[in-house]
């Protein structure tokens, strides 16, 4: 059986409106899966439901490393397998960045070293700052650090880098590739296709609550599918002279 598999996952609202049409996906351990789709195409529904934190009605199965993920499950054993991380962090109360990192460690069965991740992300300078006083980008960066320390088997990142500057974004790309090489699996949704093409082993394109195409980046990020997503736009795909990955020009 595949390390991470989604089988005929189907999500509806209580009123019967379909949010995600039956979707299946098989993912190997240590892969990075990019998810792209227009606004309202069902990305967040898809990501929340595979992570077991979807509040709508869902049928179908999600398996991670031999365990089925459901909403009813004990969250601590579920989060150890698969963790959903979003993009914004309202914090009516405040704690220091260092405490946030320690929380990541405290909630995990097999945490990564706080010192190590703090150093790797360059978070040391922020250690004694209150999370509420950070910029939006710094908050996302700190939350990503916390999630890495907590060390789930599959990390689902839903626009979790939307406020990062270019330097941190490329830093994130490096960190993700390193973690993936060490065995962590990533599902990353972003509106930045050029970022996704850089980090992803496979790309999933979504449209109208279903998967339009899933596969290797070069099979998905091409003018054929871009035209299906955006018939009115003039988009071009070129290869980056630096990384050899597909990039969008408009």
């Amino acid at each position, binding site marked *: 059986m595949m390390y991470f598999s989604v089988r005929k996952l189907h999500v509806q609202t209580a009123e019967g409106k379909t949010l995600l049409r039956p979707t299946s996906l098989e993912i190997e351990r240590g892969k990075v899966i990019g998810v792209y789709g227009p606004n309202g195409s069902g990305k967040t529904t898809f990501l929340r439901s595979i992570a077991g934190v979807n509040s709508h009605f869902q049928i179908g199965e999600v398996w991670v490393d031999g365990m089925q993920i459901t909403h009813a499950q004990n969250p601590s054993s579920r989060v150890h397998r698969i963790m959903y991380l979003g993009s914004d962090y*309202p914090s009516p109360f405040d704690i220091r960045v260092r405490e946030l990192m320690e929380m990541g460690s405290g909630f995990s069965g097999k945490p990564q070293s706080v010192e190590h991740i703090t150093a790797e992300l360059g978070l040391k300078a922020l250690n004694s700052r209150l999370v509420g006083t950070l910029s939006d980008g710094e908050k996302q960066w700190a939350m990503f650090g916390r999630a890495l320390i907590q060390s789930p088997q599959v990390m689902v990142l839903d626009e979790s880098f939307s406020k990062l500057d270019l330097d941190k974004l490329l830093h994130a790309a490096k960190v993700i590739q390193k973690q993936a090489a060490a065995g962590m699996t990533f599902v990353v949704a972003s509106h930045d296709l050029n970022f996704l093409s850089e980090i992803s082993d496979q790309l999933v394109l979504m449209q109208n609550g279903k998967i339009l195409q899933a596969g290797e980046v070069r099979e998905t990020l091409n003018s054929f599918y871009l035209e299906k997503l955006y018939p009115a736009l003039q988009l071009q795909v070129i290869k980056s002279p630096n990384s050899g990955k597909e990039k969008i020009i408009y």
Partner: protein
Amino acid sequence: MKKKVYLYSTVFLVVSVALSLLFKLDWSQAGIILTELRFPRTVAAVAIGSALALCGVVLQTVLSNPLSEPYTLGIASGAALGAALGKTIGLRLNFLGLNGGAVIGALAILFILLRLVRKSGHGAEAMILIGIMLSLFGSSLLSVWMALADPVGVQSVTFWLLGDLSRVELKTAVALLVFSILAGIFFWMISKKLDAFLFGEKWVESFGVSYARTQLQVVIVVSVLVGFCVSAAGMIGFVGLVVPHWARKGVGSRHRDLVPVSAILGAGTLALSDGLARAIGDPRELPVGAVTALVGAPLFIFLLVKSKKTGAGVGSLEQDGAE
């Protein structure tokens, strides 16, 4: 840093208790006044003060709302109403001077509140508005009920609405203290889970903590605690609001330290308030709830205005408390 906070809090508690016991003491009858009058009410103040502060801390956390406390959310008035109704209809749920009807009232109001907030789909401010309206509604219903159904007891409407520690018997006070300590231990044991609530409802489960289950546990323990406190000493407001914010300034928002420090500070605060209520009004006595509200209500407004202005919430209060 944190050791100092524990030390100062404990010193504050000891001094407050000493003041409450010894203030304007008539030394010729010191023995009887202390054992018969002041000791029981000081134990009650310590127990109720810590209970209310604990309830404030955990409610603020699990409801992601810095303005929450038993009084502002209407839980205290639900408890008072439950106790009064229970007494009149002869509900036999009493033991050691504590009233089970109050627990039912507190639970009922909390569930109504959570349901209404969920239905309205609004955030923190709506919760406080609904809570304050429930509180007023409960208090009014209580006044009407006492006037119509319980003519002999009309005078004690003041007891319910403004609190009074003078009638608490020693056995009741000790029972309250035991409950308060047990609740404190429970909240301390789930302090890690409570920490996961610091980033709001959406993120709780990303730490591996069940949002609904933890919230339910807290709501039930809070209802029991508030019900017992109110049935023994009426509604004492704002201790649960002021003390947690004060404690956060000292030890930050992690519950491992926030829970015990709040309990200690809450105990000291109510003991001191009760001492002041007697001292200021001497030879008569001010209602202790009026004293706490005189300090608490302005602070509530300050916090509300501040959180609106900065948008960052009340946690930003502790910015100046750098390590």
